[in-house]
């Protein structure tokens, strides 16, 4: 399945957001996820399905002014 993750096109087999973050190696609670410009709350990763052409954004805390 073709999706865009953080601006890059990828072919993945993950079916849910939970599987996507595991596949990419994110662990713990220091990141947040959005799908198609809508935030996916942490508690909903397992039940949130990923579909063809979805745009997924995974962000982490960073320095900011």
């Amino acid at each position, binding site marked *: 399945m073709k999706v865009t993750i953080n*601006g890059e096109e990828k072919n993945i087999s993950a079916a849910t957001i939970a599987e996507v973050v595991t596949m990419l190696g994110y662990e713990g609670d220091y990141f947040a996820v*959005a799908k198609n*410009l*809508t935030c996916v709350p942490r508690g909903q990763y397992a039940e949130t399905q990923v579909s063809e052409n979805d745009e997924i954004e995974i962000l982490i*805390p*960073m*320095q900011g*002014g």
Partner: protein
Amino acid sequence: MWQLAGKTFNSRLILGSSRYRSPGNLRDAVKRSGAEIVTVSLRRQMTGDGSKFWDLLRELNVTLLPNTANCRSVQEAVTTAHMARDVFKTNWIKLETVGDEYTLQPDPFALVEAARILIADGFEVFPYMTEDLVVAERLVAAGCKILMPWAAPIGSGQGMANPLALKTMRARMPEANLIIDAGIGAPSHAAQVMELGFDGVMLDTAVALADDAPKMAEAFAHAIKAGRMGYEAGLMPKREFAEPSTPIIGTPFWKEKTA
């Protein structure tokens, strides 16, 4: 001590966490200035271990104020705020919507719309704005209790570009918490805005890029405190003419002139 969004703070300095030479430099600047609120952002992980900065933030033990820096639309800003709430476990959001690429001037229309959406969603919105009084009024009408007008464009270090407008905003919005965000370059600039009665100052570049960032952070802390004390004590009115401070009565060698 002062109140901001229901919390009590001693320091009126809000410190950014960006552009420091090292994590240790940021840590020392926070400690030495006594800043109790630090701004942060959310970004894509480009390299290395993304959890390190998160660990440093926890170690600082400060109140975090996440921003929506570089968001170009209402939807981007709203989604970033939701993601920040998910990670940082706070309903505070420093709402930023870029309107102009050259000055990085906030887009006031997107700002007001995003503020309205986020306030309805339970956020405490800290909108980064220009010194425009009508925009300030619209933001307050949307439910903002805190406003963050710029002194000058971000990173410019100019100090107050439009002191009259900032003075007017303070006078017209006595109830709002007004925190100057952006454009402050020197401790004296911070003292000046505090003397006008602003409630706090948000800084990043002026501290982070100083030769000695922790020392500069402390310098700003003193300036902010001095400016606030000056405001509370009541500044003398400006006059067009001189007025001697030493009594005239009893002036030595004085003689009544005779015609």
